[in-house]
């Protein structure tokens, strides 16, 4: 009896709409995040993640409504990130029905936000998203650098040191995205996954780069507690259940529904 490794489909949401709608089932509205989340719930997703990429505050207000409508019909865990800048932002999403909130740029600007949210809601509800990019090989120090603003702004923070600090600040989980691999389909940055998973006592979700099912297995074997993926599921290449069958055959503990 061990904890099953989680498979988490991630939906990018902008102004209340899914940016790239899923197309593996006949949905009346493939741009509706709630319909997409319900479809993944039916497939047996272990958790569902919304990342809000709205630029304007109105878009984020819409997100609270999306989360509430999701909670009305999806009985699987929901993590929501993007634009969480205050304890109040976190509270609105959690009250609407999110189980965990993900903080990214705001944690870099004010690390005490992580501590304040953990004190108020418990560490288990606080995910911090870390966007990491390998330093250029010629630089004096190797490793990874932390980026903010959706991977656009280098922050001059060392990836591993930042992850350790986040655990100390009270983060309950880290969502680690490789900016080098994101969108490439070349697989997770396994060295990054291995390094972070070995560096922190809290769960690590690997993200960025999945192109085939073997990449999910590799991420979990590298030490990730959960794997996040988007396009491999959205475009119908594989179902969640196919992914779980593949992982089970590889000897990895997964939940089959």
């Amino acid at each position, binding site marked *: 009896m061990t*904890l099953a490794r989680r498979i988490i489909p991630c939906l990018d949401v902008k102004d209340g709409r899914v940016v790239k709608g899923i197309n593996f089932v006949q949905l009346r509205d493939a741009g509706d995040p709630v319909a997409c989340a319900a479809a993944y719930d039916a497939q047996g997703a*272990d958790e569902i993640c919304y990342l809000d990429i709205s630029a304007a505050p109105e878009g984020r207000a819409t997100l609270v409504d999306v989360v509430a409508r999701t909670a009305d019909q999806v*009985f699987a*865990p929901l993590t929501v990130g993007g634009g969480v800048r205050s304890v109040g932002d976190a509270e609105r999403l959690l*009250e609407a029905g999110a189980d965990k909130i993900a903080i990214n740029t705001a944690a870099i600007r004010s690390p005490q936000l992580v501590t304040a949210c953990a004190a108020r*809601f*418990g560490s*288990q509800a606080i995910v911090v998203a870390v966007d990491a990019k390998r330093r250029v090989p010629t630089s004096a120090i190797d490793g990874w650098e932390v980026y903010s603003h959706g991977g656009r702004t280098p922050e001059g923070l060392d990836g591993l040191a930042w992850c350790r600090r986040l655990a100390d600040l009270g983060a309950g989980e880290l969502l680690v995205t490789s900016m080098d691999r994101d969108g490439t389909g070349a697989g997770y940055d396994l060295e990054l996954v291995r390094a972070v998973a070995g560096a922190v*006592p809290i*769960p690590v979700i690997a993200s960025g780069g999945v192109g085939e099912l073997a990449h999910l297995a590799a991420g979990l074997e590298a030490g990730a507690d959960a794997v996040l993926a988007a396009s491999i599921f959205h475009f119908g290449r594989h179902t969640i259940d196919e992914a779980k069958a593949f992982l089970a055959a590889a000897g990895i503990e997964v939940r089959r529904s």
Partner: protein
Amino acid sequence: MIAIVDVCSGNLRSVERALQRAGGRTVVTRDPDTVRRADKIVVPGQGAFGVFMRGLTERHLGDALREAIASGRPYLGICLGLQVLFDESEEQGPCAGLGIVRGRVARLAPGDRRLKVPHIGWNRVAPPHVADRTDRPAEPLLAGVAGGAHVYFVHSYHAVPADPSLVALEAVHGVRITAAIRHDNLFACQFHPEKSQAVGLQILRNFVEAVP
């Protein structure tokens, strides 16, 4: 009517929707008298122990819960709704709980660096294997739930009852974890039935349909 007790906890809405899906008539309330009058009581909890206990106290809900529980009405606790039944928690403290069930709430210590805390995700639950307790009646809220079913956990602390025979379900995360307890009219689970898809809805349906 099932009273869902509103103690500044994040998952009220999910619990309400799931109970309604399971066929329950519910009211979300922070009014002590409504709690006293309810047929059944659900205390969802999510968050930090100290904040939750403070919320209970400020809303004068502690005594209402004690009275309702003492009257024998069915009580379902979820996560912190389980933990606050105990004498005290290590979280944000030690911090006193309601003291309805003897025991304490301790931080998870899996004893293996690869096993992370918080314990987040789907784990298997089963009744504890106790050779000399074969005469124990089957737990009615687990009717239709297969032994070894996966349910969703998200927590860093777990309850350790002084009387181990209260443990109705356990999970393993390096160490044995109390996943659910049964004590007279109390059933409380550390996992989240409202987030445990079909298995969770079955447990909630059993609670809704149970005759006091």
